[in-house]
């Protein structure tokens, strides 16, 4: 046995994490055009036109996402694993995957299916296309509780942890994420303005905070894996 290979699987997932989000970013930003989001304050005819204009890229992008959807689960499983390494036991780790696996359906799948169904029959009644558009966008941008629950248990786990798997400031960054989810409640009320699903506060500021959170998580997952490797090789040396 070579030294420190026991967490080789963790390293695989740690590299997979940014790779998956990169692909996901390309899909949602460049192909399917759901981020940045299309406008909520348009007529049914304009929504039909949106689907007509991006017909092909929506189909390519979201079909790709249907295949890669499981990557979200895999990235969340990795975070769950790191929470399990904390001194706080498994409760928060299970809470995290609980919240995140619920979130996969309203957070990713529903928008995928709604947009593909809309693109499936472009000659459908425009009112129905409009319904699919709203349903997709509101569930995608507005699935709040599942992620809030996951961020909350993550933050508490980090604050109570004594193994220093993640630094304390990341707990606070997760709390910002909760705050942005709280503000996102407003998108169910406002079809335009700062709090709409494409609004400067409910969307753009939230995206900035999310990017900070995600970028920090990518770096911290790598650091946690490095520390785990170092600890294991130290243990192996000690055992010999």
């Amino acid at each position, binding site marked *: 046995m070579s030294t420190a290979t026991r967490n080789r*699987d963790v390293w695989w997932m740690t590299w997979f994490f940014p790779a998956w989000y990169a692909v996901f970013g390309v899909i949602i930003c460049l192909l399917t055009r759901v981020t940045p989001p299309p406008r909520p304050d348009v007529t049914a005819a304009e929504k039909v036109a949106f689907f007509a204009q991006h017909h092909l890229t929506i189909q390519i992008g979201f079909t*790709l996402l249907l295949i890669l*959807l499981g990557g979200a689960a*895999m990235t969340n499983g990795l975070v769950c694993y790191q929470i399990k390494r904390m001194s706080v036991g498994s409760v928060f780790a299970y809470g995290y995957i609980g919240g995140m696996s*619920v979130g996969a359906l309203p957070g990713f799948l529903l928008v995928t299916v709604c947009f*593909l169904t809309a693109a499936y029959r472009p000659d459908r009644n425009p009112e129905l296309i409009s319904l699919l558009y709203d349903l997709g966008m509101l569930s995608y941008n507005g699935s709040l509780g599942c992620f809030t629950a996951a961020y909350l248990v993550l933050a508490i786990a980090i604050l109570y942890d004594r193994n220093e798997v993640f630094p304390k400031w990341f707990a606070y960054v997760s709390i910002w994420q909760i705050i942005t989810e709280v503000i996102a409640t407003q998108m169910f009320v406002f079809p335009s303005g700062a709090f709409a699903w494409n609004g400067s506060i409910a969307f753009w500021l939230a995206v900035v905070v999310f990017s900070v959170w995600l970028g920090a998580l990518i770096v911290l997952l790598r650091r946690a894996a490095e520390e785990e490797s170092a600890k294991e090789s130290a243990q192996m040396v000690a055992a010999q």
Partner: protein
Amino acid sequence: MQILEQAQDLPTAGNIKAQWVSLWTGPAVGAVLLVAAIAFPGFWPPMSPTMSADQVAAFYADHTAWIRASQVTFNLCGILIVPFLSLIVVQMKRMRQTHVFAYCYLTAMVSGATIFALSNVFFLVAAFRPGRNPELIQLLNDLAWIVFIAPIGMVVSQFVLLALAVYFDDQEHPVFPKWVGHFSLIIAAAMVPAAGAAVFQTGPLAWDGLWSFWVRNGAYALFVIVMFFVLRKAIQRQAVDDGVISA
């Protein structure tokens, strides 16, 4: 499985017994779901995506009772496959590595099951008021079929994770034999094209097509059957190792 008398009350025996029960829920649920699939009129042959809204509405009006009976069964029993899949998680945690693949598998399994559960609801809502505007019935039918066939991402990631876990399991006597990894990847490859069901209305990739319907669903059924025997062997070996049954 004959548990040794002296081991009866050990926690290890309890663990083996629980796994054994979960193992046998597999064929039981499989049988029920097979009956439901046979009873669902929309599968024989699978409803064509090219049906007009009126035809779809007429189909739901003509077969309301059987659609309801079979989809309620799917709704009630579909997620009962979860204990069987949990068994794979438990066995993955016995492999020689950290448990990260097992947690990823668990997450993907829960999300995948949730997606399946959603499709039954769409079928059932479409059958709830057959007198509804045909355009709405067609919409519900589209959603039901697309959610049922196309989102294979969660299961595909389960196969990939299982394969990775098997390949990374470098114990002298691995929990699963290596071919399970290859097999798992082949099943994944067989299911991936079904994502096209959300785009194509005709041909093998349409939801009633050879690939998206028959190969996809057949592959998954084959996986469950093969994993039944693989898991049975793994549990028996674990039982011997734990001293719960005689070799």
